[in-house]
């Protein structure tokens, strides 16, 4: 069985025919060549595959492409190209919050969603939000620092616009 699905990915309308068993992650990576969505465990444990589905972070490995029909998806590529996370990316770079980079795209998607919901999170809240994202390299501290620094910078930019 294949099904025709239509959805919006990074602002572009997409129409494809897929097997129901195809995950949204495989759809993004293999059909749309959006390989910034990473696949680690394919069972919801590692968080490497996070994307925004209708604005909310979800595991693309646990959503079937057919379930995303009619919805809006944003991937790391969309967030990066729009400049929405430019400051977050810079903060990760400055703080050495990535080493191999495998977890980074999922971390970014999650951090972006967190700061959207809660512009001034406590460190404990940042940790809680990232509790489903594994990083095997950095030890997390630098990642929490980078997100914390981005939140503070955004707050001070609002108070004192350039």
């Amino acid at each position, binding site marked *: 069985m294949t099904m025709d699905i239509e959805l919006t990915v990074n602002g572009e309308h997409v129409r494809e025919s897929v097997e129901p068993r195809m*995950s949204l992650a495989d759809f993004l990576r293999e059909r749309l060549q959006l390989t910034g969505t990473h696949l680690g465990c394919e069972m*919801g444990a590692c968080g490497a595959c996070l994307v925004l589905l209708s604005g909310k972070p979800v595991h693309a490995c*646990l959503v079937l492409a057919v*379930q995303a029909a009619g919805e809006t998806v944003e991937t790391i590529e969309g967030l990066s190209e729009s400049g929405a996370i430019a400051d977050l990316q810079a903060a990760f770079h400055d703080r050495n919050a990535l080493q191999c980079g495998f977890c980074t795209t999922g971390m970014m998607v999650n951090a972006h969603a967190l700061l959207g919901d809660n512009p001034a999170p406590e460190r404990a809240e940042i940790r*809680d939000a990232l*509790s489903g994202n594994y990083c095997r390299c950095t030890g997390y501290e630098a990642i929490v620092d980078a997100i914390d620094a981005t939140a503070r910078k955004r707050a001070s930019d609002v108070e004192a616009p350039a």
Partner: protein
Amino acid sequence: MKSPAFDYIRARSVAHALEAYRSLDGEGVYLAGGHSVVPSLTLRLQAPAALIDLSGIDALTGISLDDGWLRIGAMTRHAEVAADPMIRDHAHLFHLAAPHVAHPAIRNRGTIGGSLSLADPASEFPAVALALRAEMEVAGHDGVRRVKADDFFLDIYETAMEPGEILQAILVPPVRAGDVAVFDELARRRGDYAMVGAAVQAVVDAGRVTDISIAFFSVGNKPTRAGAAESALRGARLDDAVIAAAQSALDADLDPSDEPQMPASVRRHLARVLLGRLLGHLGTTA
């Protein structure tokens, strides 16, 4: 790993879903949030002929008050359970428990109906349903019936629903004067399944416990009411001696098995510690 091939049916109504299930002759699986179904397909633990997606059925969504009873549609996502003001006010235990269910992204997809239907003994919501003495609204070919939470959870991954029946909603009884709720779990990391957890719903009147229900999870094959501990508390004042008596009574209530990661004696100990904390908290919340 990748899932075996299956068909996909987007149900338009409960009747359509029931009919689709029947036509598949036992080879269909309902899909709600999919956060238990999809990993089990990927791991090839299941190979259904088709998934029947319940997420487009209006009758399974929404949260409403009817005659004091709160009706929570089965498709309500965990994140909505955490954030919804009606649930906060009329089913406070669900509000307290939701942040402990998995991680934030999983809570955006997983549904309360999926969690209760799956009946994982390590899950938070089945124990909350027990402590709240909630009722399940179950639809089948013969119509809709209500099942009390006490009669709903039968064993590991087993409920009183017949194959093909659909959980439409969870019904929570009216809030009583003096109702207080406390919830907590002991987990290795935030978001992990608990080593031991408990939900407590009580009525406290001038320092005296007039009614209480205590439900543990992650301590056996199903969420478990702690009847002996409840008896030790009912009618009593929450002082240290009463709390100690309730903790001792747990030995009669809980029967965890020895597991490689945790001997039964450790789990019993953790259950006593957790109950002590929760009752202390109850005393200060009431």
